[in-house]
């Protein structure tokens, strides 16, 4: 849905397509029990709008998207961008109606009818408006990097359009494809470990990433201690040696997908190769960074009363979220869309876009939506940080059960960032069904009615076959 917004505004046209990957499948598994859930857009038949193949999410680098947005702003000709300039302070125009005055580092003073705070987690606009925010820091930092790896073998394997995420007790590690030979990493882990990993030799980080997707949790815990203890003189070779030793101890075959020995391209790759991300070979220089994770939610998205009038917050300035569900950008884009719609409808009736009355619909549209996601993500984080075995058992059984329920999985995929085409289809179907009552459209209505019938059948059949297969297994 958010993706469609970018398409509708025309910003997507300026995106570098070769650095865009649509994700068709997602593999998520539990680091302790290996319980696994697979989301597949092809199976659920979602996201195939605008002539695209079914997909559940679209990945691209931040820079690519930012450049596209800047270009489309330039092309629109209505926005003026003041670059290489910082906001030095914001104050209230006390003499003249309390409009915000933004002082910039080049000495200009801008008097704002509406000051939109899209200025990140430490938003100066939020502090100007006196909006409190609540939340807590997770004892976690996220490491991000762009990874290089060999492409999947043409002819034998599909090019990877699969995202992988393994939930370790220290936090989830995610592997998101960008192109056939590069992917993006988001690894949430303990701050001490994150510091050691980002400071170390990049090749050692490569080994640690590969191991984090492959080794049993007990060995990963050991490796973490190893990294922390030896960070002064740890060499990547010593680390690899240690990993190989642990593989032998776990009886991992050299040709298995779980091995750190790169598949050399001769012969047939392991049959389960697509259960795991490809082995990372190197890290793009300068792409490693880490940032602290926090849950926070502003008490209000629009400034209240005398002090905060004519301000609105969106994106990270309004809320920060754990990246495990990959919803941060989606939420920000949804905020931007809602605020833009709100401003547009105010302009159409001659409203003052900085007024509380004009902005209230924005807060009403977004606050509760964001709150639901923030809280669901927070609960997931807590659920998966546990190593207490009953909790592990319950979450694993839950995951496996959900994995068997195709309709529920489709619903999850739709909310987690895929396009709204399925909803649109459903709407079309029902509107056609209504039209069926009119005589003129009897012919097409018949077609619509049968297609609705088929969908219902399909759902039933899928449910039944799942029941049968699962009872068969027992």
């Amino acid at each position, binding site marked *: 849905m958010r993706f469609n917004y970018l398409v509708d505004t025309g910003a997507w046209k300026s995106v570098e397509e070769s650095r865009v990957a649509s994700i068709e499948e997602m593999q998520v598994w539990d680091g302790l029990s290996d319980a696994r859930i697979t989301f597949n857009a092809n199976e659920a038949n979602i996201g195939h709008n605008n002539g695209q193949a079914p997909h559940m999410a679209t990945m691209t680098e931040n820079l690519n998207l930012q450049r596209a947005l800047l270009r489309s702003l330039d092309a629109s000709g209505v926005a003026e961008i003041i670059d290489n300039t910082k906001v030095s302070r914001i104050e209230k125009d006390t003499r003249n109606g309390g*409009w915000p005055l933004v002082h910039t580092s080049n000495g200009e003073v801008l008097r704002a009818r509406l000051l939109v705070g899209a200025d990140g987690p430490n938003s100066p606009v939020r502090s100007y408006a006196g909006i409190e925010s609540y939340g807590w820091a997770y004892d976690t930092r996220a490491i991000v990097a762009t990874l290089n790896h060999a492409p999947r073998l043409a002819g034998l394997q599909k090019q990877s359009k699969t995202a992988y995420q393994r939930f370790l007790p220290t936090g989830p590690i995610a592997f998101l494809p960008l192109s056939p030979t590069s992917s993006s990493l988001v690894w949430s882990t303990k701050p001490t470990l994150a510091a050691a990993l980002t400071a170390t030799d990049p090749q050692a980080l490569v080994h640690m990433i590969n191991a984090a997707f492959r080794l049993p949790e007990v060995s990963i815990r050991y490796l973490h201690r190893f990294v922390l203890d030896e960070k002064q003189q740890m060499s990547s070779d010593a680390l690899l040696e240690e990993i190989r030793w642990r593989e032998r101890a776990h009886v991992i075959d050299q040709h298995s997908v779980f091995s750190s020995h790169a598949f050399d391209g001769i012969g047939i790759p392991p049959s389960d190769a697509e259960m795991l991300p490809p082995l990372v070979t190197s890290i793009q220089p300068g792409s490693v960074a880490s940032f602290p994770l926090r849950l926070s939610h502003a008490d209000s998205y629009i400034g209240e009363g005398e002090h905060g009038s004519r301000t609105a917050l969106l994106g990270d300035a309004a809320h920060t979220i754990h990246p495990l569900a990959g919803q941060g950008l989606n939420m920000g884009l949804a905020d931007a869309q809602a605020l833009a719609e709100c401003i547009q409808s105010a302009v159409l009736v001659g409203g003052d876009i900085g007024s509380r009355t004009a902005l209230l619909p924005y807060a009403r549209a977004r606050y509760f939506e964001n709150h639901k996601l923030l809280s669901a993500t927070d609960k997931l984080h807590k659920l998966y940080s546990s190593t207490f075995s009953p909790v592990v058992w319950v979450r694993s059984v839950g995951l496996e059960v959900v994995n068997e329920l195709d309709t529920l999985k489709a619903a999850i995929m739709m909310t987690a960032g895929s396009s709204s085409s399925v909803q649109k289809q459903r709407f079309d179907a029902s509107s056609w069904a209504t039209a069926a009552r009119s005589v003129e459209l009897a012919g097409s209505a018949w077609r619509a009615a049968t297609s609705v019938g088929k969908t219902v059948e399909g759902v039933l059949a899928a449910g039944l076959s799942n029941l049968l297969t699962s009872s068969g297994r027992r």
Partner: protein
Amino acid sequence: MQTLLRLSRPLLCIARSLPRVAFARSAKLSTASVAASSVNQEEIQFFSRLSSQWWDESGEFGLLHKMNPVRVQFVKNKIFETVHDDGFEEIAEREKNGKILDGLDVLDVGCGGGLLSESLARLGANTLGVDASASNITIASLHAAQDPALCRTSALGNVPLQYRNAAAEELVEEPKRFDVVCSMEVIEHVDNPAAFLRSCAELVKVSYELNSPGGHLFLSTVSRTPLAYFLTILAAEKLLQLVEPGTHTFSKYVKPAELIEFFQKPLGAAGRPWISHVYDGMPVRQEAEVRGMAYLPWKGAWTLAPRGAFGSTECNYLFWVRKPLSSRV
């Protein structure tokens, strides 16, 4: 009791549609001429006391702020429709969203703090806001002065928004006439609604062009029904005290049928009636229209009821009527 009150609070907010100017006593809209001014001094004092709160959007006038977009939308829609009906489809389509009010002379009678006037001025209308309370005009002018978009003088030397402390009757004496006259939430506060309506009607421009009727008159008020009494007076003023007690006077409320009846009679010796036909108590769409409006607490916004929706005009409603061709009132 506390909970009960809190629960019923949103529903009763409907009652907060507040008035702007003040003026007579009789609720019957007689066409017999009354020379006296329609300004009611008590009402003027009442709203002058509240004037500082006009622009506190979460305060006393919060519901009026929220009502404003619906009123403006109604004004825009009706003007769009008439431009279309007059055969200027292209102009209408082109300016549907943007500038349908551009360049029109608009008068806001009983402008209060200027909520409606500012919106109309932003849409491009040459707006004059008048109010019988001097303190309202002070507040309105001060507020508009803060907004550069409203004080900018155009190339022709026009200021998009001006305010004057005057009653409708004083303007009638002057030669200036307007394409659009609005008087929102005012008529239920005037002393002689018939005289007041006649003044407003007089201020609407006459068209001398062939086949093109004259200007528009927009009103909004509260109907004199048990529901309106319950919501606007019993609940809002007496039980919940959301609104200053004394804001509304039930007997001054005006029913849509009374407005329609008023405009069915000729407004002057030689004039034509503004509404020529009535079907089922309702005028034809090209001559006049009554639309109900209701506050939906679960959406936090007012909504314009569909044309002819059952019971929709039992409380707050909007009224539009157009000066007929060659009427000299």
